[in-house]
């Protein structure tokens, strides 16, 4: 009797989880199906079109420079991520493994800047970009994100966990400080590298407010920006299929990466919350 009750409970639990999973997955599957469907079929609940075609994608390519924006987004995200890894580890290394005046102060500044809302710096940073003549350049998209307080703290913590002997031995061998950071220490903190890389790549890839502000030239727009302006600008009103196709193309790279590196993604994203 008792066992039966328990299994009923478990069935209910699985049912609840399954319903939840469907609410999260169904819209994405529907979206991919709709992107392959002709316009008159899109409004329906059916998951897969009767005659799937790439017509919507073909139309999208003819209407907006989506390929160019894909390359822009990739370039920006790759450069931003590399810079965040480099600056994060050099600063984190100094804070973790070196004694110098002002170290504690810099640490507090980093913690403080992390809690500063971006709304306060948004307009002045735009004006800085105007004054430096960086509006409508890749630099405007990369430089303001090239140093991350969060990355510095992650690297600091990772380096603190490594034994000093590792560094001393490398110095004995005549290794430079840069060599120590990138050739001796980096291989020992792979999880941190992966976490910081994933977070800054996704952050850069999904950023949309800042590109909307500093990029006006359609050829330099990032993908989320281009898709946003396409969706808002009314060019897509009669072309629902194209709009959905654009959304699919924007989602696909991240979704594929997620399917392969699920665990890393989840652990990385969770660490942003757990740091606090």
């Amino acid at each position, binding site marked *: 009797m008792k066992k039966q009750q328990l299994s009923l409970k*478990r069935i209910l639990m699985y049912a*609840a*989880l399954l319903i*939840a*999973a469907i*609410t*999260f997955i169904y819209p*994405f599957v*529907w*979206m991919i199906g709709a992107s392959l469907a002709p316009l008159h079929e*899109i*409004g329906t*609940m059916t998951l897969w079109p009767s005659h799937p075609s790439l017509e919507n994608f073909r139309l999208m390519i003819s209407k907006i420079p989506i390929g160019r924006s894909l390359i822009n987004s990739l370039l920006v995200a790759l450069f931003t991520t590399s810079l965040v890894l480099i*600056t994060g580890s*050099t*600063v984190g290394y*100094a804070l973790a493994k070196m*004694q*110098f005046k002002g*170290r504690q102060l810099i640490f507090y*500044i980093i913690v403080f*800047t992390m*809690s*500063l*809302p*971006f*709304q*306060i*710096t948004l*307009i*002045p*940073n735009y*004006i*800085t970009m105007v004054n430096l003549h960086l509006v409508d350049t890749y630099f405007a998209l990369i430089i*303001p994100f*090239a*140093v991350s307080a969060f990355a510095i703290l992650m690297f600091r913590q990772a380096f603190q966990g490594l034994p000093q002997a590792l560094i*001393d031995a490398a*110095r004995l061998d005549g290794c430079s*400080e840069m060599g120590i950071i990138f050739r001796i220490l980096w291989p020992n903190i792979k999880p941190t590298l992966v976490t910081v890389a994933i977070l800054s790549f996704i952050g850069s890839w*999904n950023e949309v407010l800042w590109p*909307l*502000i500093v990029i006006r030239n359609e050829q330099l727009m990032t993908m989320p920006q281009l*898709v*946003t302006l396409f*969706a*808002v600008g009314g060019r897509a009103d009669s072309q*629902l299929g194209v709009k959905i196709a654009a*959304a699919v193309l*924007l*989602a696909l790279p*991240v*979704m594929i990466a*997620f399917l392969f590196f*699920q665990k890393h993604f*989840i652990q990385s*994203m*969770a660490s942003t*919350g757990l740091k*606090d």
Partner: protein
Amino acid sequence: MNIGVEIKTKKIKRTYNKKWLPYLLVSPYLIFVIIFVVFPVLFCFFLTFNKWNIISPMKFIGIDNYSRLFHDRLFWKAIGNTLKFLLLHIPLQLIVSLLLAYLLNQKIKAASFFRASFFMPVIVSGVVVTILWQQLLGFDFGLINKMLMGLGVAKIGWLVDPDVAIYSIAVMATWKNVGLYVILFLVGLQTVPTQYYEAAKMEGATRWQQFYHITLPMINPTIFMVVILSTIGGFSLFIEPYIMTGGGPLNTTLSAVLYIYKQAFQYYNMGYSATLGFFYAIMIMTVVILQKKIIEKEV
């Protein structure tokens, strides 16, 4: 042998105690902070006393921007909208993510599949989620209204009814972020020692009693973290109303960030927009600090 080592360590110390080296290493950060944090904050404060459209010269106008802000109905409406958004978003986020995490924590099979499916919207761009939900929430052709009509219920103006639109966006934002908080709660739940539950079971406590008297107090820190993170996220609401409604209907989904953006980049009121941003940032910090204070008291 020993002496050799000692000499070598001394040599290391001499070569590597270069005083300038750590400063060189942290200099990229310091330069960055000066250009992108310290200067902007000061400049923002300076701008709040000026009228400026970027093209013509700046004009000092004293505290006019501030008095304008306090009389700006649209700005206060935007703040009100953001608060309405939070009022639904935070409790919903807490309940759904805690429930899903609690279920996942019951030695479930295929737990990683469920976890991944909840997490999918977290990593995808807000732009994608917004375009997707536009199709779900549309009035005439939206999938949810079609489902309602199939059940014989009247259509709801998810995005066109001024009393509903902001809450629709709050539900969508919850759908997007809940997976992250499920993970945070899972971590929190796993820190509760199983002996506590065993002891409670011996005393004859029901599941609900166990949850209420053991689980909830133990995961208090996670609950507070989720509240603070969703508060900060909610105050940054921008792209969802920007794409979905443009702030309408009747400005009921105009978020504070969207209003700041419009003031700066549609009307080119840089001074006034900076004032709004400055005031809003201080408001956010105050709310978060208050939340932290209340939390510390309770814990």
